[in-house]
């Protein structure tokens, strides 16, 4: 009798519970996402020109994507040798079991063909191996010469779809290529794709060139040059090769940058031992003085909304970071720690300012919020400086020099990049030594 009663009680209580059990999942793996990139399928290779065939796009285009995703530190690209399914079939509909067997969570497949207009047509698909469905599929068209850009744009699409953030792969980097002995360095302006390909020199190396910057909206570049032994800021049109001096300043101008709308150049002008910050409108040529202080004011950087400017000043006696309104008013110091601060750059997302810090003989690259709080040092080195932001505000490039022994032996200068979390510090490939890097905005914008 007792048992029957008990049984009834249990049943009643159990049926009363229809609500689902709620469990909080607050932890997981912070590891790169395992991804597989299959070789692409060539749809009509018979229509390819000899030159195009030699490019081996079926392996080299996926390779561009693979290197981009791998170098971002957010993806773990599985070895091609482990792939079970071949490109011939995988681009149609993958056998998801084959891909999940090798532990891929996403898979990228593609098809390449030449269309009637002799354009390169690349179709790619992003597959969710775990859920066995297609996440995204796009077709891109370009001249065969720009096949690498297709790879970069596909990388950006994949990056954006899987992380929620805009990518930064379809971009270029301008920098100063260095060679020769340390006390007689030969410096040339150089430009390359963000993955190191298509490196081109823009100047011959007959005079010193320093600190180049991209114009966010056009093919213009600004930099400082010792042309005719007069250190001045110049503009260079990459397409036409035409160079022109910025303004008519009776003294050294240096540290040039563009405003976010590309219409103004902001720079420092030094006279009689004092350096102040000026802007010049490229169209009207009107010059405006923003700081007028007997200290050294340099390295200015606009906020992405153009309302503020962060800059480097030693008005306190030591190099520190200050923020002012873009009309020069309301100057406020933001750097708070011990040590010297320099080269401030405002993130394109507007949320952080990156900088160089010198403390106890060591150089640091760091970020801080725009009011100076939350200072985080990302990397320490014997010598490194001049961070520049990727267009999505996630990655910084900068340059590093090694210490030189007697007679300058052993000195080398290279470009490095690091994620703002402090992870994924990698060296960039350049044909020679390099310094003063600057990242362009997305080319497809």
């Amino acid at each position, binding site marked *: 009798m007792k*048992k029957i009663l*008990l049984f009834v*009680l*249990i049943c009643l*209580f*159990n*049926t009363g*519970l*229809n*609500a*689902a*059990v*709620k*469990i*909080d*999942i*607050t*932890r*997981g*793996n*912070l*590891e*790169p*996402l*395992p991804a597989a990139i299959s070789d692409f399928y060539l749809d009509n290779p018979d229509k390819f020109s000899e030159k195009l065939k030699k490019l081996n796009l079926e392996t080299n285009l996926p390779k561009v994507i693979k290197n981009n995703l791998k170098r971002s*530190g*957010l993806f773990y690209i599985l070895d091609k040798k482990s792939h079970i399914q071949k490109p011939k079939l995988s681009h149609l509909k993958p056998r998801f079991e084959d891909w999940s067997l090798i532990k891929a*969570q996403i898979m990228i497949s593609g098809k390449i063909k030449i269309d009637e207009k002799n354009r390169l047509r690349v179709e790619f698909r992003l597959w*969710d191996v*775990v*859920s066995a469905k297609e*996440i995204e599929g796009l077709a891109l068209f370009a001249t065969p010469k720009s096949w690498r850009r297709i790879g970069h744009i596909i990388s950006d699409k994949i990056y*954006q*779809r*899987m*992380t*929620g*953030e805009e990518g930064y792969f379809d971009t270029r980097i301008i920098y100063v290529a260095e060679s020769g002995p340390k006390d007689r360095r030969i410096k040339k302006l150089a430009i390359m794709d963000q993955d190191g390909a298509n490196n081109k020199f823009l100047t011959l190396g007959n005079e010193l060139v320093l600190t180049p910057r991209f114009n966010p909206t056009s093919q213009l570049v600004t930099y400082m040059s010792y042309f005719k032994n007069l250190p001045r800021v110049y503009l260079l049109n990459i397409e036409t090769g035409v160079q022109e001096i910025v303004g008519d300043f009776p003294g050294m101008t240096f540290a040039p940058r563009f405003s976010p709308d590309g219409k103004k150049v902001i720079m420092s002008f030094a006279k009689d031992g004092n350096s102040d910050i000026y802007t010049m409108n490229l169209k009207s040529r009107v010059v405006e003085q923003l700081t007028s202080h007997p200290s050294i004011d340099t390295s200015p950087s606009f906020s992405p909304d153009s309302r503020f400017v962060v800059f480097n000043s030693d008005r306190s006696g030591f190099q520190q970071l200050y923020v002012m309104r873009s009309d020069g008013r309301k100057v406020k110091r933001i750097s708070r720690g011990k040590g010297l601060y320099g080269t401030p750059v405002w993130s394109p997302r507007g949320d952080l300012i990156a900088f160089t810090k010198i403390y106890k003989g060591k150089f640091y690259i760091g970020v801080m919020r725009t009011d100076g709080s939350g200072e985080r040092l990302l990397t320490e080195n014997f010598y490194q400086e001049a961070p520049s932001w990727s267009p999505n505000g*996630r990655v910084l490039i900068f340059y590093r020099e090694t210490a030189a022994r007697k007679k300058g032996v052993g000195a080398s200068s290279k470009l490095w990049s690091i994620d703002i*979390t402090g992870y994924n510090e990698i060296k960039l490939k350049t044909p020679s030594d390099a310094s003063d890097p600057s990242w362009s905005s997305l080319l497809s914008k």
Partner: protein
Amino acid sequence: MYKSFSLSILFHTFIIIFTMFTMPFVVKKPIDVPPIIEIDLIQISDKTQLPFAPKAKEIIDKIKEKEKERLVTKQAPPKIVPKEKLDAVPLPDNIKKKIEEKQKKQNPEEVKEKIRQSSEFEKKELFDPNKIAALIDKSKQEQADILAKKSLEITQDQDNTVSLDKGLTITQEDAIKAQIFKCWNIPLGLPFDEDLTVRIKLKLKPDGSIMSSEIMDHARMNRPGQGFYKVLAESALRAVKLCDPLKMPTTGYNKWKDLQLNFDAKEMLKG
């Protein structure tokens, strides 16, 4: 220059005298042997949710692998009364004492290894109640049949009181969490100051496999500007699919056939 020189000599003599008197003694001191500590394994349901220390878990896992012969799956054959109930519920005192005595006699090494880990790291976060429960289970296997029949009525009765508050015991919940933790690849690019909780409703079959999964805030996925949410939601869905079939308790199916998993990446991304 002379001032610094004389100061240097003064400080150096000071250091010499100081070290002369202290150094020889340091060398001779004997090594302290830490005394053996006894641990009383408490009932898990008395404690609240324990956060997970991934590093400790790895080490505990490794040790578990070494003792594979003694390992018993959580899903015992249905005829024998499930062991989870035994430790999840406060047992009558006499049974509890018997279990502990038996456990200490049979597995002195296991206890010791647990001790070592506690001293290396710290405190409660190490106590994976689940794993310890499993270890206890192994030793009690012979006792299970005898005790099972006696405690069946008791445990079922008391189990009902527990289930009024929650469908699953803390131990069972942690078991599920542990599995999902392993399967969830958190997208690294997410901003950590936004509200990023994804709620997924699961319907399970008795063997733990997933019948259906559904994102509760489906509409938010496709809203412009909520790209991050979509990415997080998809990663949560992948986690659930990768963990299919889930290892669930063998009884109480009605309690856990409907699960709601609240994925919250905030803690991990705050870093």
